């Protein structure tokens, strides 16, 4: 998908959460900025749903940030394997 990269504040709004929370997830490595060429890091639009997923898992299952990030990464891997098996 060739969609435009967006700023962190836009990602926060689309995920429905605060900018500080997005920053925290970036620190934990959930999101990699797609570009750092401008002053502000830019993210792929899909980052919003990834953030929301991590935050749902964190809140609903009582995980900490590292645990939520790990869960998201494992889910990605499972998804990739399922796609391969199809």
């Amino acid at each position: 998908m060739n969609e435009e990269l967006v700023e962190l504040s836009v990602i926060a709004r689309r995920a429905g959460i605060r900018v500080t929370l997005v920053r925290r997830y970036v620190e934990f490595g959930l999101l990699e900025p797609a570009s750092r060429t401008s002053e502000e890091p830019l993210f792929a639009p899909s980052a919003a749903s990834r953030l929301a997923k991590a935050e749902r898992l964190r809140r609903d299952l009582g995980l900490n940030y590292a645990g939520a990030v790990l869960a998201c990464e494992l889910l990605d891997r499972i998804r990739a394997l399922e796609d391969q098996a199809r």
Partner: protein
Amino acid sequence: MAVEFKDYYEVLGVPRGASQDDIRRAYRKLAREYHPDLNRDSDAEERFKELGEAYEVLSDPNKRERYDRLGAQWQAQERAPGGGGDFEEFFDRKGFGDGVRFEFGDGDVSDFFSRLFGNGAGMRSSGPLRGLDREALLELSLEDAVAGGRRRLTVDDGRSIDANFPAGVRDGQLIRLAGQGAPGRDGGPPGDLYLRVRLKPHSTFRRQGDDLDVDLPVAPWEAALGATVPVPTLTGTARVKVPAGSSSGRRLRLRGRGLAKQGGGHGDLHAIVKITVPKHLSDEQQELFEKLAEVSDFDPRKGRS
């Protein structure tokens, strides 16, 4: 609308005398099992909501006490001669409404919960959050993938939607429909809907990535002498030049007549020569073939032991 009694103990699979620790343990285990981000079954989300509601009530000593008291009375009445009816009637008769006016339709909790704890007694909230993304399979014929159009689809939450898809979609492509996923929590934005494209096998064209193969039947004399013949494409018919001396299996490329490529452009269509011989020959044709056999020194098996 009848409001049915909900057995929150049964939902969490714990006995009525379960301790707070037992309840917490049971909830955490089931929450991991049915969390909609972890479990892609269509009924997991409903089950997860039910778990949250049960835990909300049973983990709070005040709510649990109220639930136990009213629940026991309701069930006793149901067993009594001439008893029965639904929970709502029970409330109306016993006057347990506490003067609270109910407006059903809060999506996050059941009517039973609202009835028991009053309108506005929602779940403990931890702030707004975007809703789940959804997915639907978009199965298309090659023709439809090339042309684009509109299709009725079943989303993984069971909904049916009419979705437009653009011309030139590729197998495995994800088409994002922003905001068409599950509603957000506590006023958060909705998730997105992804259409996952799957191209169906075609009776005429074989797909090789972005390229297509199609068989091109030709008569022996067309193959030997050369000819320009029609070949089907996804959008109609093209003409292809079969060079003189083409054997079966020769691939004739029609550039750009394949499927859309990622990043623009199109794959190619390959017409594969397939020499086809008439089943019955007239006397004259028979004679001509025999004559050809006589004058020809062509050995198609030359060099083979």
